[in-house]
């Protein structure tokens, strides 16, 4: 793992097991399937619901600084804690959580490599349905970091940067607007002109862990033409898979100035007059 640009943001399942009960380390599960945490989680982990706790419940946006502070304070996380995030679907929404933690300036946040699927399938890793004991804290977040997030006007004006579309091939080509069964959708199918198609799962191996830096560089830079000298924007449908690739480009490959466009296709594909390629 040392060949990643920022290896400290990734921990292995064995490391997590060794650090269960360590007071300065907080574990947070964030899943696509919001029933998964209740069914069983890593002992001591708290669970965040991406639909109700990480999104503003009135306007379409990430939660406010105040809401983030309350969320973390209520589950006993302090700014100096090491926070380890993990979740299902190869860490889709835990990567989104990682992005949110970074936006609000949390210093030491990490992903558990392979996510809950890897933990679940290792015989020596326990799961529990017991709720963790929590001592609430007062959490103070930083002002949101504008360097990690890109909004629609900047996307429309983006030139000379890597646009990375991380959705499936069928979404990229406009054959489908969203994966089957997904309720969040758009008015039109296709992709942002000039975007390169690199589905998010290109970055992971059969056990759900990230590929090596060499493999990732070969895929993104050599095969797909992501120029490491340029700024990069990752997008998907609602921002969670984009966070996964944002994490890869920014932390594992160390590309400069990588942003996630969390408005993603559900926003872009509904804008009247926005240019679309199929």
């Amino acid at each position, binding site marked *: 793992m040392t060949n990643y640009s920022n290896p400290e943001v990734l921990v292995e399942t064995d490391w997590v097991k060794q650090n269960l009960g360590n007071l300065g380390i907080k574990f947070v599960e964030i899943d696509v399937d919001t029933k*998964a945490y209740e069914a069983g989680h890593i002992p001591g982990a708290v669970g965040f619901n991406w639909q109700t706790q990480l999104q503003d419940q009135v306007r379409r946006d990430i939660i406010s600084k105040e809401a983030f502070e309350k969320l973390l304070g209520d589950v006993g996380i302090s700014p100096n804690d090491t926070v380890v995030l993990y979740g*299902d679907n190869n860490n889709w929404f835990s990567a989104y959580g990682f992005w949110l933690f970074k936006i609000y300036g949390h210093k030491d946040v990490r992903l558990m490599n392979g996510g809950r*699927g890897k933990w679940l399938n290792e015989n020596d890793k*326990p799961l529990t*349905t017991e709720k963790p004991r929590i001592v609430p804290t007062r959490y103070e977040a930083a002002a949101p970091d504008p360097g990690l997030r890109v909004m629609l006007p900047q996307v429309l004006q983006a030139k000379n940067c890597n646009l990375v579309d991380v959705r499936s091939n069928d979404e990229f080509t406009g054959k489908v607007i969203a994966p089957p*069964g997904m309720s969040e959708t758009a008015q039109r199918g296709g992709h942002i002109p000039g975007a390169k198609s690199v589905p998010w799962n290109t970055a*992971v191996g059969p056990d*759900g862990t990230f590929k090596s830096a060499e493999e990732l560089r070969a895929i993104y830079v050599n095969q797909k033409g992501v120029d490491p000298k340029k700024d990069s924007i990752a997008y998907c449908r609602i921002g969670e898979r984009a966070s996964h690739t944002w994490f890869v480009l920014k932390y594992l490959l160390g590309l400069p100035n990588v942003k996630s466009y969390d408005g993603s296709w559900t926003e872009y594909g509904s804008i009247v007059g926005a240019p679309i390629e199929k």
Partner: protein
Amino acid sequence: MNHKTRVYENVFEMLPSEENPTPLVRLNKLNQCAEFPLYAKLEWMNPFGSVKDRAAWELLRDIEERGELANGRGIVEPTSGNTGISMAAMARARGYRLLAIVPNKVPLEKKVLLKIVGADLEVISDELCPAPGLGDGSINLAKTHAKASAHKYVMPNQYENSKNVEAHIKTTGPEIWKQTEGRITHLFASLGTCGTVTGISRFLRGKNPNIKVIAVQPSEGHDVPGLRNVSQLGVSKLFDSSLVDDILEIDFHLAYTRALELCQNEGLLAGPSSGLIVEGALEIVRRDKRGYGVMIFPDNIFKYTSNMMKHIPGLSSGLQP
């Protein structure tokens, strides 16, 4: 138990065996090639309604014998319906509960049937771009229950448990060999957990290594409950490519049109996975010209009326006064 008079002391005595096989019925309209007859093995004639009776019984007996169901412990199993229906009905009749973890795409009829036979149901969205190597959401959720609540649940795990394969080595394979008097040249089966194709192939190849085993799979992005495209096979540990000669990919819409033809022309009330198998078998009849084929028809059409309405134009019209 008397298979001749078909009088039984309990439903479990009706489960299939060499002495009590499910029927083989020849196709007469859809395949008219005299040199290559195709026989359908009607697995819906099993007492709980599908080919899954075989694996469900073997898995249930195994955990029972190992004492895994003591102290009120129940069963948790991911299922697209048929295994859950068979296993829940068997379990309830023997005094156990079953929690079925069911992908949302499973037809409504199967979900309701699961509840009717006494399963507890947890329905999850299972359409989330399955990642390479990761189990389906339903499999992982069932594993989570079995691990986090081990005092409440044991998970037989039809996707990884070799008893699933053994069921077919013990029953389906010997039945086919005896029923065809060893004349079978081609076996046609669909891929789901792969227990059926792996078990039957292992048995029949032991009798005659020249028997061709043809697996039929729906095209990617399919809507045929219970089946898997090869790209989804990572979740089954029971697939053994050395036991399969050909894997045919069939446009999944044909599963529905062929099922309709089976119902309307052959009098065989077969479900869509059987339709898919027929299409694959007819392709091989045209290719190989001579043979003696056996097709595993997993279940009947009754659980698929809502899917049929979705895929067969015209079925949903004229239903109101």
